[in-house]
């Protein structure tokens, strides 16, 4: 089984290398380094160098870069996804704003709606949005970082939002992705610790495996076949058929 962490905060070459080294030592097999639209194309300059360095260190970890769109304007979100969809393999929309939550879940070109509960008094999702997520195959991301960075009553509220989203996930079966959201050496967690935390919150083993292994794998496979897709559901199989 491969463990995927779909949200590491990318910043610069050295920090990214440290994050990937730590992730490898802690049992992760695949990491997505997330950048905002400004930094993404700068980061591409050192991607090959990072790959070579990882090979030199003998690390057994795959990685890729992803785009994280942070905006309060749904129109801007639509524009940015349309503009970058063909160039970038993984696009996530940062949630928290109800308009953005809805706009991201209505848009098939978005892979993941990240942290819809961010700085909210509710989970940011309801049954309508949950159905939209299922219909459009947009995953919802829950980040461990939100539990780690909050304390006492705030942490309890975040956990409560996680439980609300889990309840909707059980009923509507939209894809759910669980990530660490690490940005430095003090945030990285091992796979076993990650499983233990989510189990203690109330997730079942199968739900965690889905969130860390199956759903991320499906997203990667789906995005790799996106260029052969004529419309959603119709795919070119090759000239020889």
């Amino acid at each position, binding site marked *: 089984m491969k463990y995927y962490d779909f949200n590491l905060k990318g910043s610069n070459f050295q920090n990214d290398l440290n994050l990937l080294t730590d992730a490898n030592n*802690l049992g992760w097999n695949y990491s997505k380094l997330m950048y905002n639209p400004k930094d993404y194309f700068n980061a591409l300059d050192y991607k090959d160098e990072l790959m070579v360095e990882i090979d030199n260190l003998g690390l057994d970890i795959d990685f890729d870069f992803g785009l994280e769109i942070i905006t309060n304007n749904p129109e801007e979100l639509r524009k940015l996804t349309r503009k970058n969809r063909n160039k970038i393999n993984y696009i996530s929309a940062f949630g928290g704003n109800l308009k953005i939550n809805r706009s991201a879940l209505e848009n098939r070109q978005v892979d993941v709606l990240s942290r819809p509960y961010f700085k909210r008094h509710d989970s940011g999702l309801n049954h309508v949005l949950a159905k939209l997520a299922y219909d459009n195959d947009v995953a919802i991301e829950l980040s461990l970082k939100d*539990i*780690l*960075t909050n*304390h*006492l009553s705030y*942490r309890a509220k975040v956990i409560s939002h996680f439980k609300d989203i889990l309840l909707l996930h059980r009923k509507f079966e939209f894809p759910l992705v669980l990530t660490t959201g690490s940005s430095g*050496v*003090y*945030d*990285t*967690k*091992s796979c*076993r*610790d*990650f499983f*233990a*935390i989510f*189990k*203690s919150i109330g997730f079942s083993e199968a739900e965690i495996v889905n969130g860390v292994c199956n759903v991320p794998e499906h997203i990667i496979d789906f995005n790799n076949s996106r260029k052969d897709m004529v419309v959603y559901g119709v795919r070119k199989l090759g000239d020889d058929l």
Partner: protein
Amino acid sequence: MKLKVLPPTLRKNKRYLTLDIKSQSGFSKDDLVLAIWDACIRFWGEQGTSEFDLWLMRLYSDDEVKDYYHYRAILRCQRGYEEEVRAALALLTRYNNNKLNITTIGLSGTVKSSIDKYIIG
């Protein structure tokens, strides 16, 4: 007068967690004990933590120069509660206003095997 030792069938079964600790500042064994108890009581409450039977057995410091202070420790807990302790420790991010990251890197049945496997090995 010392209490007579319990027969093996009445003793609690133990497991030993090997911890990897990264900290922004140096700390002593007593500080770590307080931090571990604080983490467990915050997350599981007094009643939950009473089941864990926590005891810090060893603390080793890594002398290699890094951006952070690096330690390894062996923590005893009751068998069956390893996952709960692991989760509570993973959620400890700050102690005395210093950043702290505790990761459980191993689980053993004896102190000796945890030292051989995860401290020396």
